[in-house]
């Protein structure tokens, strides 16, 4: 059958949680990117932020004999045995955002969460004033990205700046509204807060929302990760200090590129990282453009 010369490969993308805005963005980007590959037929599954659910989905995908399974793990170690089963079943595997290390025969594409936070932490090292009061907003407990980013801040910033006091640290579960609630209380409890250190942009934006228009907090510093449309705008307005772009587009592009290589048997195993560009007021315009092009703004 000459017309169908090219074989169609079935690819399963098992997302961490479609309700989480970054994960949704990544899934959307991957779908879009896959449309450029005629030999790839991509299906997206939603892990709903639950390890148990995600593991079930991986099992299902194996049973259904996909040619390639891409896992965006909710929690790397929890998915490890299931990822291993993928390889055992002779199915190609990519782990991404974040990779599960050390699976023989499995490939990976990642932006390193530790590095994402480390690059902004390094900036903060210089910017945060002497004896500053800072507040810290964390992602969900047990979440790989949440804990890696927090580790980076610990090692790259807090360990080097013993003068800085953490006057409040809470878990806001990546959510803007939860972060607002904490920030409102911290503002009451403290004379001044010099910086908001947040493990993602949503929470940083929430905290900033609270001090919006308050002249006392005109100079408050704030750091996030993700480079969401909102964060980029805040940086442009001069209200947010910096964030690391975790570009879903870049990830998606790379993932599909690797996918194609794997399914067509051009390579057997590959590990690759995308960069961690920092967004600040100096380079913000290009990221605004990026988001506008994507229809996010």
């Amino acid at each position, binding site marked *: 059958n000459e017309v169908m010369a090219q074989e169609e490969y079935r690819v399963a993308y098992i997302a961490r949680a479609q309700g989480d805005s970054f994960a949704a963005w990544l899934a959307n980007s991957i779908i879009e990117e896959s449309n450029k590959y005629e030999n790839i037929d991509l299906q997206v599954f939603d892990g709903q932020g639950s390890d148990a659910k995600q593991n079930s989905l991986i099992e299902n995908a194996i049973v259904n004999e996909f040619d390639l399974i891409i896992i965006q793990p909710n929690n790397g170690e929890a998915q490890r045995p299931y990822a291993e089963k993928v390889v055992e079943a002779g199915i190609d595997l990519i782990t991404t955002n974040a990779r599960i290390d050390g699976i023989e025969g499995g490939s990976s594409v990642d932006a390193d969460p530790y590095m994402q936070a480390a690059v902004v932490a390094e900036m903060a090292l210089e910017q945060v004033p002497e004896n500053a009061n800072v507040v810290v907003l964390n992602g969900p407990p047990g979440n790989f990205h949440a804990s890696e980013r927090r580790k980076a801040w610990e090692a790259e910033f807090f360990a080097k700046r013993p003068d800085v006091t953490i006057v409040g640290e809470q878990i806001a579960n990546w959510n803007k509204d939860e972060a607002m609630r904490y920030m409102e209380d911290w503002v009451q409890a403290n004379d001044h807060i010099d910086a908001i250190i947040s493990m993602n942009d949503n929470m940083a934006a929430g905290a900033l*929302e609270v001090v919006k228009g308050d002249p006392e907090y005109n100079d408050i510093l704030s750091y996030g990760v993700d480079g969401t449309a909102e964060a980029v705008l805040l940086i442009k307005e001069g209200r947010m200090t910096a964030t690391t772009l975790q570009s879903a587009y870049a990830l998606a592009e790379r993932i599909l590129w690797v996918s194609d290589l794997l399914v067509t048997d051009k390579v057997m195993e590959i590990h690759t990282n995308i960069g961690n560009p920092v967004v600040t007021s100096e380079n913000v315009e290009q990221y605004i453009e990026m988001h506008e092009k994507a229809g996010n703004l």
Partner: protein
Amino acid sequence: MKDLKLGDKFSRIKQKYGIFLVLILLFVVSSLINSNFLSVRNLTNISRQISITTILAFGETILIISGLLDLSNGSVLALAGLLSVSVFKMTGSLILAFIVAIVVAVFCNIINGIMVTKFETPPFIATLAMMAMARGAALLYTNGQNIYRIGDYTVFGQGSIGFVPTPIIFFILIGIVTWYILKHTRLGRSLYAIGGNEEAAVASGINVNRKKMLAYIVNGVFVGIAGVIFMSRVNAGLPNGAVGFEFEALTSSIIGGTSFSGGVGTAGGTVIGAFIVGFLNNIMNLVGVNSYVQQIIRGGIIALAVIYDTRTKKMRTKSQLGNVE
């Protein structure tokens, strides 16, 4: 009853206002623990923080009194708020946006009502189904993405009239409406009767299905308003916002004395329940209690508050009995 001694008097107060005394105690202790607690700013802050879930709790109270329930309010809030934001971005009309939120939330609640009355689905299942459907619809509408740059839409949640922030104004207004409905209208009294004994209510000539439907519609109006305030407060359209709010609303309502067996509950009690949770969260944050420890303490204190309330209520029944002669 003639020679009421001071001790007696106090014990009567204690019995009548059990959970209210818990609130007062919490208030006093918090003031002592942290000097920032008692500032006008902080108290305003707390009121604003609890306003959205308490508005939901008012609806929940009305429903639970009637033997109903709403698990979908968080999701419907998100859907209604999101569509409202998006209509605002398209038209620029605040009024239209406000109306859209209410229409959407009422629509969802009419479906809840139809499932419960016409199809006799248990409210738990009916509203659980709506919870999934509304959330799915909200996420589908924006494909999981947030809507930003909502401009003047923020007046609903971030503005203030005089010194009073708008969310608090809505909170107070809806509280009064709830109190009025429950205490002073036929609808309210019918709902108590329905929740207290549905068959008896039917036998008294109350049109039970219509009243239940009305209860859901009122709830819908409240949820719609909460949706507007929520999106306005977070300055975005979040399809995934307000997850778990149904639990918080239920908790305020139940701590405030609303009973799942139906027929019991008040607007005032719900406010007290909401403030107990609000004070507790606030003081723990002011003091800087570790997140995990906070959860443990919160659980413990909520249980203690309700235990205390139940105990004093029991005492009340006993001492009233003594007056039968």
